[in-house]
């Protein structure tokens, strides 16, 4: 935008963050926060982030609730596996999922979702071929994992980010 505020929203968020962390609206903290806001946004320009375009805020809310529910459910599932009898190593393994999504922020969000859901780990994404590799702790039914990630997450993320 301007020279000093290339990302006004990021700067605003950094300022609010600083004031919240310090629980203060005093002029001293405000100046420090403003310096952080301007410096942080300038540092961000060096990274040349791709443009972010968000659509369908309703889908964001829906996805958030879905993910929270999935996190609770998979926490219980993984706790069961840990506390249960020792299992053969063959029950876990790698699997690949072809993705249609290419939006960088959508992929970042998917990485956060997959990593925050216990039982699945993001291993890598081959952007040339669009193939996501994940590691699954409880790999009994591969098809259901593909369906979960494509139908539940990828479809909604594409609605939001593409």
């Amino acid at each position, binding site marked *: 935008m301007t020279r000093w505020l290339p990302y006004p929203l990021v700067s605003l968020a950094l300022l609010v963050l600083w004031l919240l962390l310090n629980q203060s609206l005093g002029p001293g903290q405000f100046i420090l926060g403003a310096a952080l806001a301007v410096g942080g946004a300038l540092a961000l320009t060096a990274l040349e982030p791709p443009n972010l375009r968000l659509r369908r805020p309703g889908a964001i809310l829906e996805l958030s609730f879905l993910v929270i529910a999935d996190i609770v459910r998979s926490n219980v599932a993984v706790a069961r596996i840990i506390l249960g009898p020792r299992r053969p190593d063959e029950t876990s393994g790698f699997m690949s999922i072809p993705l249609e999504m290419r939006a960088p922020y959508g992929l970042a969000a998917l990485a956060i979702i997959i990593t925050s859901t216990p039982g699945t*780990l993001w291993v890598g994404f081959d952007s040339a071929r669009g193939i996501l590799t994940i590691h699954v702790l409880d790999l009994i039914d591969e098809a259901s994992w593909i369906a979960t990630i494509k139908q539940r997450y990828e479809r909604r993320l594409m609605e939001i980010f593409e």
Partner: protein
Amino acid sequence: MTDGTDLPAWAAILTALFVVAGAGLTLIGSLGLLRLGSFYQRLHAPTLGTTLGTGGILIGSMIFFSALGTRPVLHEILIAVFVTVTTPVTFILLVRATRQRGTDLPPPSPPEKNTKDLAH
């Protein structure tokens, strides 16, 4: 500064429930590091602590400080956001490092379907 004695009973019980649940899940996650067989399996265990474990303790903290009315409960939201956004970086780095060193069976590239872990 914060004295738990003037905490109403309902808030004390709720706080205790959430903190114990969160700490318990984190403990189970740590146990998983001992119990699970291979490196990639063990990587799944600490995610219990970084998700619901952290979440439970944070909710307990929010109830505690809201009931006491000592401060606005916004710190916890910031903590949750930071933990959620930074944890994947740690795990992805761990996986990358493991693949780089080749100490465990890496997912083949191009990945085949359902390659199994090598047991240690």
